[in-house]
């Protein structure tokens, strides 16, 4: 399949066949370190006219740079792709990236669930999505409706490349945190989240609204605070938006209690991606028996919880890691994906925009493109499109 893995016979293949194969590129690393030092472009051939019966050939439509992808390359992330010489590299290597959207461009004779033109995303993490093409098997893919599927189903709209390429982490994280642990009563109950302006935060407020949950989004104070509050409340579903200062202030507590009393519910859930004092603030807003889920640590500070909150309000603090939850639970992943896709198709959910950079094979070095993406990832989610 890959010319370099069959190097002993490749000469025979080439002499026998005069046509050109697909020249594929992948961003690989053979050792861990800073991405700029360890990421390299590897070029290899894919023979798309002799596809093994159980294989599927993919073309990448887009793949983003997530913080966890960077940590994976650095070697500081617990989930790691296996390094192999499958792509014909001299040293065992892994392809970077975990999230991405692919179009199927070739299928083996025994493939029945996918056809050319279908869209798919990796079924699992560590797929290696930073590449132009891939060869894989059915069990490694999850099908998504492509725009013509959606049209045929009479949906308002088809998925965009950005929606498909960034569906596996942030929207799933937001949906599962809101639905998998605590049962919130629509119209009555509340959740509070810090990082209200983050990608997950915006998905959570929108999904909260779609499910009828009231939300309080905590955001950092800023010059254009009013326009941010307007956007989060009017376009992105937040019921209330407060500043970090208000989150930490004792005097502001009664205001929140008033909101919650009005709907006759409780603050059953807190979502924390910041840590430090901010996490203490959101945990304090919880009603008795509430749950705080921590899914990130933007401040690089620890979670801080007064023991008395545990004891007298019976608060639970737990971690949420979408990878661990969905590992070995394909049904849950499918159910969740179907819901997100359907909201996108009905134009009920806005995706978090990414900064898109198109790959031009004639002049770009693919690894450099992702290195730039990593460099710029603090400025917004970076998506490489093909």
């Amino acid at each position: 399949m890959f010319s370099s893995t069959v190097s002993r016979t490749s000469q025979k293949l080439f002499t026998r066949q005069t046509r050109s194969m697909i020249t594929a590129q992948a961003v690989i690393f053979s050792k861990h370190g800073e991405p700029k030092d360890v990421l390299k472009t590897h070029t290899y051939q894919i023979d798309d006219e002799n596809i093994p019966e159980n294989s599927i050939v993919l073309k990448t439509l887009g793949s983003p740079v997530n913080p966890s992808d960077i940590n994976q390359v650095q070697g500081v992330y617990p989930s790691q792709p296996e390094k192999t010489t499958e792509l014909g590299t001299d040293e065992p290597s892994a392809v970077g990236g975990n999230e991405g959207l692919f179009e199927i461009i070739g299928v083996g004779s025994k493939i029945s669930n996918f056809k050319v033109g279908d869209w798919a995303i990796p079924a699992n993490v560590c797929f290696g999505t930073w590449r132009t093409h891939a060869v894989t098997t059915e069990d490694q893919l999850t099908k998504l409706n492509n725009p013509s599927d959606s049209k045929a189903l009479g949906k308002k709209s088809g998925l965009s490349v950005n929606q498909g390429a960034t569906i596996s982490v942030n929207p799933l994280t937001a949906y599962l945190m809101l639905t998998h642990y605590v049962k919130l009563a629509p119209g009555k109950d509340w959740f509070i989240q810090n990082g209200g302006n983050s990608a997950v935060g915006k998905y959570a407020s929108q999904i909260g609204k779609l499910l009828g949950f009231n939300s309080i989004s905590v955001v950092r104070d800023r010059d254009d605070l009013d326009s941010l509050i307007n956007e989060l409340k009017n376009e992105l579903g937040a019921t209330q938006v407060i500043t970090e200062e208000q989150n930490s202030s004792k005097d502001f507590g009664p205001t929140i209690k008033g909101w919650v009393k009005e709907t006759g519910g409780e603050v059953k859930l807190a979502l924390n991606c910041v840590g430090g004092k901010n996490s203490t603030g959101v945990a304090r807003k919880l009603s008795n028996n509430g749950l705080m889920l921590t899914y990130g640590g933007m401040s690089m500070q620890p979670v801080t919880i007064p023991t008395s909150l545990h004891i007298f309000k019976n608060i639970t603090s737990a971690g949420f890691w979408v990878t661990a939850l969905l590992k070995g639970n394909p049904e849950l992943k499918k159910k969740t994906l179907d819901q997100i896709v359907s909201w996108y198709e009905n134009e009920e959910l806005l995706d978090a925009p990414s900064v898109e950079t198109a790959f031009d094979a004639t002049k770009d070095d693919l690894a450099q493109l992702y290195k730039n993406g990593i460099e710029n990832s603090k400025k917004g989610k970076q998506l490489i499109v093909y």
Partner: protein
Amino acid sequence: MTKGLALTYTSFDSDISKVVSVSEYDIDFSDLKPNQVAIQALATPVNPSDLVQIQGVYTVPRTQTVQGKEVHIGGNEGLYQVVKVGDSIKEFKAGDWAITKLPNFGTWRTHAILDFYDDANTGLNDVPLIKIKDSTKASTNITISEAATIGVNPPTAYQILEQFVEFDNSGKDWVIQNAGASQVSKFLAQIAKHRKINVISVIRGGKPNHDEIVKELIDLGATKVITEEESQSEKFQTETIPQWLKETGGSLKLAVNSVGGKSASALFKHLSQDGFLVSYGVLDPEPISYSIGLQLFKNITTKAYWFTKNTKTDPESKVRTLTSVIDLFESGDIKNIEFEKNVYKLGDRKEAFLEAYKNAFAKSSKAKQVVIFE
């Protein structure tokens, strides 16, 4: 007609002796209704949580009427002897030992009459007592010392080991606890040993009788006893404790915290994958703080444990737990932890009653105190 005495208060103050007094009340055992049970105190512990309740910084106690006056009666734990039962009572007979099922009964009193099968008056459950010793069963050998403090600490330790994680029970798994020399910790070490769970008990170092304490804890059932300093050191977090876990081939599934602050944060670091940090008490006002990365990737949950809350939610859980705890005492698998006795002779003047409690309050921070009724 009998004269009963109760230690009561009507307001809260950090200086407990300012607000407590003795209420005397008439109680008539001669004319019990069919659904009533008369009890008389054998032993009532004075727990730190009872004291903070009087200081007004804990749960609000029930208000009850004693001799026409609205008061709070102190205490949440007590052992009583049944003196007489009404005609329709089947569960108990005179001579049985019992503790109250629900918290907030107000245990610091000499006598009481309880309504069974009807909780309208007492706010108590259907059968408001749990039997500790059957007066006619020859096989029961539970002593008054064991029974006096059976109501809170042993079931707390028992439930903490039951409620959060499943242990391998073959000598592989571990639990770590701070305040390792506390009453609950001593019971927890014993129960864990019986269940073949390894225990690391963390104690404060630097005491003159350090070696003696370590020996006592090891004898009771602790596998390892370490100091706070050791627990908070990187060496113990990255080498020593991981090595112990490796030797047994198990994981450290549960950390039990009744201290808070840095001590609790250190316990968090020792936990293995999917572990629980469970807090049931707090001494250090500093919050617990822990790495988000550790919480996410090791999937560690922090929670509270509160015996009283479990009992309120499911009163029968206390009955089941006590049954198991009594079995452990009777089989000799756990033994009583020493406490200090403050004796009040029933029928003595009310000043003596007050004095017994005040003595117990004064010494409460040093050792477990129990007022014994003779």
